[in-house]
Each structure stands twice: as C-alpha cells, then as structure tokens.
C-alpha cells in the first residue's frame, strides 16, 4: 500500500524561536485532516515545511516512501504536493482564466513550449471552464485578478491549487475572507475531490473544519497537543481552553 505523506521529528527554528518542535505527522491517501491551533502555533510554518517553502532545521519528510526533505518547492509540486497561500498569492496582472490556464499548462509540463498557442488546446480550456464553474468564477473569468474583491481572490486561490490536480492538498485558511454563505463553495469543492486525495486543512472557521475533517490535529506552540475525531476534539477541555473558547460546545 502507498503510505502518503510521513513526517518524522520535524523541527524549524527562526533564530532562537522554535516554531516546529519535533513533529510527527501522517497524511495517508484519502485522509481529510484538519490542523488547528492558536495563532502563531506554527501551522502555516508546518505547511511551508511540507511544501518546501522553508527548509527544516531537522527531521524528515517522506512521500510515498521517498525522502523529499531536500527537494525544492517546484519538485514537490510536481510530485503532487500543493498548497494554497494564507495570504493570497496570485498572478495579479493576469485574468482569472489566464491564471488557471497557466496552472494547468504547468501541471502538464508544457511551460517550455514555444511554438503553439497557449489557449489553443480545447481540452485545457474545457478543464479551466469546469474549474471556474465549480467555484462560481465564470462571471469573473476575464477580469484582471488585481481588481477583484478579496473574497473573490480567495476563491481563485483555491481554484489555482485544484488546477494542479494534486495528490496531497494543503489548504491554509481557504475560507478566510470568504463569507459564511459562500464557504459552501469551498466545502463542496473539497467534497468533490477524488477519494484517494489526501487533504490537510488549516482553518480557524470551526464550522468548516467540523464539516470537512474526519480527524483533527491540534498544534500548540510548535508541538502536537492532541489528535482525534471532531467530536473528541470539540469536547477536549484543554483544546477548549487554549483554542476553542466557549462558543463551540
């Protein structure tokens, strides 16, 4: 069987500050996990370590049995590990459609093709259309991303990552900035993902977390505090005190 993503003893220090402290973490194919924890606990840092944006101070990251700790970001994306950015990072000068086209073409490794049209492949165009349809982005298709409202950009951000057809998908606060009434677009999109895809979602929106995740990992000060089903986590007194507060019962 394939083992998916396996993280062992992962640590990251920024100067004197230990942000990840010996993390052990598994994300097998088909997983739907959530990573929650107080602000500054190290969740985004963990995502950045897994996707290769940061280099770990120590520890190992394996994917399907191969050690990927030394791979750069691009190589990991090509293996199928993709993430959305917590702070929207898009091709601001291009239209929504061009953003997605670029992602699909790169996934297909066509980025070096010089002598054909970028918009010339009907299959690619159809895929882009389907993606936009899924996230209700069609009306914005030909608008320059820079001029979209923040919440709209968040949805493009998600679409971009889906366009990569990843095998491991890490979502860093995908719903931040998206109104509650439209988070269903995000949950729907996640539910529509292939069953063998592994998903890790980092979110402070507990409704969304409880709806999507089958298992929740709680990170506090760079260490894993506990891991459990949504029900277990929701009733864990320590988690309630440190993170959830009174509202979630």
């Amino acid at each position, binding site marked *: 069987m394939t083992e998916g993503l396996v993280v062992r003893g992962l640590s990251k220090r*920024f100067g004197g500050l230990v942000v990840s402290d010996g993390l052990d973490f598994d994300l097998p194919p088909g997983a739907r996990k959530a990573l929650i*924890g*107080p*602000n*500054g*606990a*190290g*969740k*985004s*840092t963990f995502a950045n370590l897994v996707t290769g944006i940061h280099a770990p101070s120590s520890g190992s990251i394996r994917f399907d049995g191969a050690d990927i700790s030394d791979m750069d970001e691009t190589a990991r994306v090509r293996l199928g590990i993709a993430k959305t950015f*917590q*702070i929207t990072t898009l091709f601001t000068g291009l239209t929504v459609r061009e953003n997605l086209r670029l992602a699909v073409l790169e996934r297909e490794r066509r980025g070096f093709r010089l002598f054909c049209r970028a918009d010339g492949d009907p299959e690619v165009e159809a895929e882009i259309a389907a993606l936009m349809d899924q996230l*209700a982005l069609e*009306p*914005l298709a030909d*608008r320059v991303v*820079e*001029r*979209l*409202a*923040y*919440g*709209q950009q968040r949805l493009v951000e998600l679409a971009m990552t889906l366009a990569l057809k990843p095998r491991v998908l890490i979502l860093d*606060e995908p719903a*931040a*900035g*998206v*109104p*509650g*009434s*439209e988070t269903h677009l995000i949950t729907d999109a996640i539910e529509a993902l292939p069953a063998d895809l592994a998903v890790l979602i980092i979110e*402070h929106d*507990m409704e969304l977390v409880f709806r999507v995740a089958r298992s929740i990992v709680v990170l506090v000060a760079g260490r894993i505090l506990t891991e459990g089903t949504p029900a277990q986590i929701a009733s864990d007194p320590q988690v309630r005190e*440190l*993170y*959830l*507060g*009174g*509202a*979630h019962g």
Partner: protein
Amino acid sequence: MAEPVLELDNVSAGYGPGHVLRGMSLRLEKGGKLAVIGRNGAGKTTLLNTVMGLARLHGGHIRLEGRPIDRLPPWRRNHLGLGLVPQTRDIFPSLTVEENLRAAQHGDARIEEAYMLFPRLKERRKNGGTQLSGGEQQMLAIARTLMTSPKVILLDEPLEGLAPVIREMLMQAFEDLAKDGTRSVILVEQHAAAALAFAGRAVLMANGRIVHDGPAAELAQRSDLIDRHIGVAMTADAPEKGTRHASHA
C-alpha cells in the same frame, strides 16, 4: 437620539473612473456600533476606504462630527479621529512589531496597552512585521490602529484568521471600546451572525448600495433579505474598467 459622529450623504466612489459605491447614505451616532454585511464584492471595503480617504470620491459628502472631511487627506481624517483596520492588514514590512506600533502612535496611546490586549505581540516585538503568523498580523493591525486613539474605528473583517478564543476576546474588547459612549465602531464582517449579535444597527450592502438599514436585531430576523443578498452566487456587474487601487503599495 444621540448626535451623529459620522454621516455619509449620497456618496458615490470607486477606484478609477468606475463607480463601486452608488449613492450611499449612512449615519453613525456617537458610541454607536454599526455592522456592515454583504457578500463578496458588495463594496464593504470600498465603503471604509472611502470614509478613510483611500478610494476616490465621485460625489456626495462625508462629515465627521458635523465637519465635512471629503477633501481631507487620510492623515487629517485620522487626526480628527478616524481609524481603519484594513482587511489586507497591510503591516509595514520593513518595521518590527514595535516600530509598527510606534509609527502609528499618537496622542496619549501607550504601547503597553496594546501589549496588554495582545500579549502575543509583546513576545514578538522585535520580529519583522511580516514575519508574523497570519493571526498575529491581524492582531498587530488592530493594535496599530488603536495607537492612533481613534474616535471612530473602522474594522474591516478584523476577526478573519483569528483563533476562536481570540475572536471572543476581541469581540469583548470592541464592546468595551464603545461602552463609554465616546468611541464608535463600524464592523464589516462576513459572518452575519456574529456581526449582528455585536452591533446595534446593521446595514446590508449589495452592488455598492444599501439594501437594508435598521436595528441589527431586526435584520437578523429577515432571513429572506439575508438569503437574497448574501446567499446567492456571485455576479460580476461591478465596473470593468478601474484603475489602480488608491494605495501606493
């Protein structure tokens, strides 16, 4: 009825020649708490930017404590008592946490108070502003605005990206700010429920216009309105041609 601190009179505004806001009128009384809700792209951010002087005013008038401010630069408006917590946080990247606060410090605001509100920031005081986690940046953005001792605080989705415990704590803090009757709050929120529970009055926006204005409790009952204006998919009838955002970022 209490005297108004902020009045908008038939305001139209946008970022280039295009109009995002069309004929908005609004009153906020002293010590009032106003919630602004609406779906993505409705123009909520633009409303706050217009009040602060960061968007381009095409028509109408804005008065602060009876005094017209529509021709004043943002810093004058700030000195007169307006404070904005921007949706995109916009931490000054080349300043440390403490310098971010010092830059904005005016009047009798004390940095220690901000640290009391957000102890996390004190721990990170020497960090570069953009090295903070997403939630920490949000805290810094709020603290930074409080450093300018505002009378009217414009909060653009201030809870986004914060842990549930912190949200509760913050909602309480906003509550306290408005309590003594000298400070007023405008809160833009995606999560209608939270916003309506906090505010006294609420405004529902769609397509750059106000579609409902009244007591928050009343709007909370009008699920028909909320469904119609928040719960449907997006359309793109916002202006096609705009120019660069007013910010010089």
